[in-house]
């Protein structure tokens, strides 16, 4: 009973919040004082941000913060200027890319579901460390440049310059760190394929690389932005928006229950969650709180 009441109260609060959000009464959540990112370049069609349980249409000039999921369109190119410890790192988001700024980590950590990310943390080690993780490979640097590609069949990392740590990911999302040297290219295919490394990027990688990633990411463009733009609320997230994120490595899904539970008030969302329970079994106890319900 208490659970039901609490769930109902939360649902009511969420409905009020959503309404207020739609009306523009509630402002966008401010960036965390620890790190924030401004979208200094946004070429192509508008990209979208999933913030809390809402979907927003976004454009150049908006501020991103930990917890935001950024999804670009085909033919899009975004540059985020992440500020931290007094210096800025640049993150390039390629076309058809879905990335999640994971909150509560000891460094700026981006989970890459699919697509291309280029990270430039500057020529020295004075910048913030930016870690980017795909399902099979990841990288981190505080004084270097690297490109991470998450494909359907495999992941690739190219260490362009400076210093970089290469990560090999396990299915649960935990990572093993390894050394890397400039111009080294690493790839890993399949669900548990072996790590392959070589000097210089593979031809297929270069062929698929977004053209804008071949050049250094443009820096300092945020200084030309007059004021922070606000993303435009579109709707609440649907199951289709979250399906792949809910099936992502478990480590990436930390906090998703608290974040998206409010959407269970939507019968369609609830039904879809229930139908795909095997992909996200941790939701079972939320969907079926009665002890009489059978386990999957």
């Amino acid at each position: 009973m208490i659970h039901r009441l609490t769930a109902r109260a939360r649902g009511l609060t969420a409905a009020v919040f959503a309404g207020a959000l739609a009306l523009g009464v509630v402002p966008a959540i401010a960036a965390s004082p620890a790190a924030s990112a401004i979208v200094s370049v946004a070429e192509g069609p508008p990209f979208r941000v999933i913030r809390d349980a809402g979907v927003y249409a976004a454009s150049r000039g908006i501020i991103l913060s930990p917890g935001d999921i950024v999804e670009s369109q085909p033919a899009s190119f975004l540059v985020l200027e992440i500020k931290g410890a007094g210096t800025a790192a640049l993150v390039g988001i390629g076309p058809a890319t879905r990335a999640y700024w994971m909150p509560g980590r000891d460094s700026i950590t981006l989970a890459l579901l699919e697509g291309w990310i280029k990270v430039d943390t500057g020529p020295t080690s004075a910048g913030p460390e930016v870690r980017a993780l795909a399902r099979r490979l990841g990288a981190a640097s505080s004084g270097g440049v690297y490109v991470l590609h998450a494909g359907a069949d495999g992941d690739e990392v190219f260490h362009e310059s400076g210093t970089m740590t290469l990560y090999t990911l396990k299915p649960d999302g935990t990572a093993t760190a390894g050394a890397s040297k400039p111009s080294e290219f690493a790839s890993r295919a399949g669900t548990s394929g072996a790590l392959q490394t070589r000097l210089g990027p593979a031809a297929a990688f270069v062929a698929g690389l977004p053209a804008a990633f071949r050049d250094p990411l443009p820096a300092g463009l945020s200084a030309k932005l007059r004021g922070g733009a606000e993303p435009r609320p579109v709707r609440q997230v649907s199951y289709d928006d979250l399906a792949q994120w809910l099936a992502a490595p478990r480590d990436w899904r930390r906090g998703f229950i608290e974040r998206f539970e409010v959407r269970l008030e939507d019968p369609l969302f609830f039904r879809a969650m229930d139908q795909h329970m095997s992909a996200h079994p941790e939701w079972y106890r939320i969907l079926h709180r009665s002890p009489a319900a059978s386990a999957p």
Partner: protein
Amino acid sequence: MKIALKFNALLLVLFVLVLGTTYWIARELLESNARAGVEENARIMMRSALAVRSYTSSQIEPLLAGQMHYKFLPQTVPSYAATEYFHSLAASADLRDYAYKEATLNPTNPRDRAVEWEIDVVNRFRQHPELGELVGERDTEFGKSLYLAQPLQIKDPACLACHSTIAAAPQTMTEMYGTANGFGWQPQEIVGAQIVSVPQSVAIQRADAIVTRILYLLAGLFLVLFIALNVMLTLLVLRPMKKLGTIADQVSLGRMDAPEFPAHGRDEMAALGRSFNRMRRSLVEAIEMLEK
């Protein structure tokens, strides 16, 4: 031999001497001037090549440095840029005989490999490092060509980033050009020569054409002079002399009624005519006195 003939013969010899001397002097001067012009063109071409190299290394290479991680771009290489610039120039039909090459003994790009005569030029620089420049002529299928060469010496350590060892070279570069050539260069080594080739035959032909035109002009002038001198000789000297001779003959044959020589003017022929007339009158008076 008649005076006119002697005069014309002398004049002709003089004309031939003058024409011959003029031809020889004019040809030397104009051909020397043509060679100087060709050499000047070659120097301008060499300086253009150096300017393109400098522009490439200072402006183009930094802009494309990021892309070089993914694909080797020969457009960032100064020697490639200079060579391509002149290839574009030589694509025009009227400039096809102009050439620029960075002839190298051990090049990365096979098209830069030095051929026989270029090897001689490079070796000359290697044996005499104090030489800053070589200028020479050689025969080509298109005629004589002047070449201007300057040594290619490894003075900038940055050059060795791609040309020292295979391991140190960018992966993207070895993927494009292979690992067989263009390595093992040493600091301060003269590895090749920048050679500009400029056709000389056109300039020399142009100079010879000018000389020919000058000769024709001179010959024409000489002809006009020749005719004018002959006309003046006839009118002013030969004809009056002939008339004087005719009157003298008549007087010598006793025909005292022969007309006097018409001595008008103040020139030598008029003075001669007046003197002849006085002599004739004195002779007539003397004969009349004797007859009395």
